[in-house]
């Protein structure tokens, strides 16, 4: 991350802390998810949170970690590593059908009428697995994910949050 980002990051972090919580050092998960691009992606907070209470709250250092993973100077490996952890909703180390379904629903829309039909979802997940599952075990592990990401040239430029 560049040198001036900590100043802006601190400013943003303080904006997320409301007035009553001024004596708190960590921002609860709901406030972080109020950032529009992160809405609905609770797993982002869980990945970066180091709190003992497992409630997804972020201290300033965690916030900086999040920003540095999403900055434009982070390498492809760092970004793909974090992306894998973010997409792995059930935290079992692989992306199986359930994770993929949750991911697609997260990225396409939350309400009933904006979701894909179950038939389309099944077709889509089988397409995804066909593309990326090299060892044909029905799940996408970290190396397969990194392999498919390295072939996607838009990933590095899209996986960025700018302040």
């Amino acid at each position, binding site marked *: 991350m560049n*040198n001036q980002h900590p100043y802006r990051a601190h400013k943003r972090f303080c904006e997320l802390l409301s007035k009553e919580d001024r004596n708190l050092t960590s921002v609860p998960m709901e406030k972080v998810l109020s950032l529009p691009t992160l809405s609905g992606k609770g797993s982002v907070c869980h990945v970066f949170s180091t709190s003992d209470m497992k409630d997804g709250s972020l201290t300033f250092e965690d916030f900086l970690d999040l920003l540095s993973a999403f900055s434009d100077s982070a390498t492809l490996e760092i970004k793909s590593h974090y992306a894998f952890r973010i997409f792995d909703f059930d935290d079992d180390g692989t992306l199986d059908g359930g994770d993929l379904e949750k991911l697609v629903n997260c*990225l396409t829309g939350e309400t009933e009428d904006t*979701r894909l039909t179950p038939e389309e979802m099944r077709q889509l997940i089988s*397409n*995804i697995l066909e*593309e990326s599952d090299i*060892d044909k075990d029905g799940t996408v592990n970290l190396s397969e994910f990194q392999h*498919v990401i390295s072939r996607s040239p838009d990933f590095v430029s*899209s*996986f960025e949050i700018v302040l």
Partner: protein
Amino acid sequence: MSFDDKKHIRGQVLALKSFKKSRQLNCFSDCSTTVSLAFRRCGANMTLAKQTLELWRGTMKEVGGKFGTGVLSYFKFLKWLLMFNIFSFLVNFGFITIPQLIYHPTPDIPAGVSFKGLEILTGAGYFSHTVMYYGGYSNKTQGTGGRSEYNMQLAYFFTVAAYMVLCGAALIYSMASSFRKKYVLADSGLGGAWQLLCSWDFSVTNEKAVRQRKNNLRIQLKESLSEKVQVALLPLTERLKHYGVFLGTWLLSTGMALGCGASVYFLSSSGSLLEEAATLLLPFVVSLINLVVPLFYSLFKKIEHYSNPRMQVYAIIVRNVILKMSILGILCYYWMKDVANTFSCWESIVGQALYRLVIMDFLFIMLGSFFGEFLSNVIGTKCIQSLGVPEFDVARNVLDLIYAQTLAWIGIYFSPLLPVIQIIKFFILFYLKKVSLTQNCQPPRRAGRAAQMQTIFIAILFFPSFVGALSMVAYTVWTLPPSDKCGPFRGLNTTFSAIQIWMDDLNRVDAFQWTVWIYQHVIRSEIFYFLISLIILVFIYIFRQITQGRQLLITLLRQQIVNVSSGELSGLTCLVHQSCCVRSGCVYVMMLLKCWNNIFS
């Protein structure tokens, strides 16, 4: 690295720091820490200052945040082209114009010619006798004898040549690196669900834009699913009909392009177009064609049914490129064949024609922005609600930029200060497009593919645009006789003879015999180029064979992964069988070694 590891390392570093601090509390270490801290702060402030000075950084982040990386690529492309022009201006101004201005500070304007306002548009009149054009430069060697001589002819030639070579090198480098990163690595399969999912743009900050993106992503996923199904289902008659329609539209579009080219040729060779106001007619017609005919092309979208929406974008791009380049080609042909033989100071005439084309193109881009974006927005929101807010058409705008840059590159030789106009034009264009974008347009509906489009745009910038400009300038320098009444090369047979004369001069000095030898046996000999081409072809063939061997290796290794993970050792015999068909022997040996490794590990 997992978080526990990170925490562990962080704890260790903090412990070490506090341990070190507690040990060295004397005055000297205090001073040194303060000094090093001051240096680091200074370095950080300088990086901060450098970033704030970086041109348009805040604006581009804002645009990228609201509209995504696809639209941002247009602005990045604009900034990149601006850098080319700034470099060209510095080089030309420094090496050609400043010496001319030092030795002839006032241009020798003939009597009766004064500055009227019309020159800004036409470039003729008062400007044609200044250093703006080729004709304003003298051919003498400036300065007194001895060391402070400045040979204007060589300076002019080498400045233009060096700029073109550097431009070409920069373009080839960026094209190759872009191609390697974004095209070769990316899978060219249909649909590509992962590509769509991974192109989720985290940098978008506007809430409405995020909701729209989710919508668009859903639509695109549905489309990609239906595409895969659709391709197999078309019967033969349908396919024949589609091919017939394709043939018809392509013939029609190429015919329109050639027709426009022919009409431009007849317009330029007819009538006396030397009166000042009438000279504006030709650029007006050219820009009008460039604005209107692509709209016709986009009407073809309704008739054709490409199986892949990407193919449609490619088709539109190719048609527009054919149109623009054929018009420019016809104009260059006219200038080199007819103008060069008819007029006395023909390079300045060509320079003025290019100046008018650049100015008119700028005016039409402004008009196009007004009609394309502002009026569409008004019509879409107030009058015909079904049309909706327009999208920013990245392809059309980038092709306009490429056309403008082609004009500037052709004009380098004929009008050394044309880059100034181009710089002003691009500056104004940036702010104009940004305002128009934020006021009138919505984010694009189709996500992704921005990287591949960028590669294609750089390739178009290199191949028809730069190579065409370079070949025109090279033809002018090599074969056309320069005008004998004006310019730095007056009196010579061809522009290149200046080099010949210089080599003859150098021949008389013993110290430079090696330069003369290089010139005669390397640059002017055909055998050298033939041998170089042959060697390059042999290398290309070898590298292609290596690449094909590697691709085969990848397929075999994939198969091996599947076999190993499903526990089939009999797959190994299959592999050995396949490896007999492999062309290069070393791959065979490598595969065998891998197999033996797997068995015995």
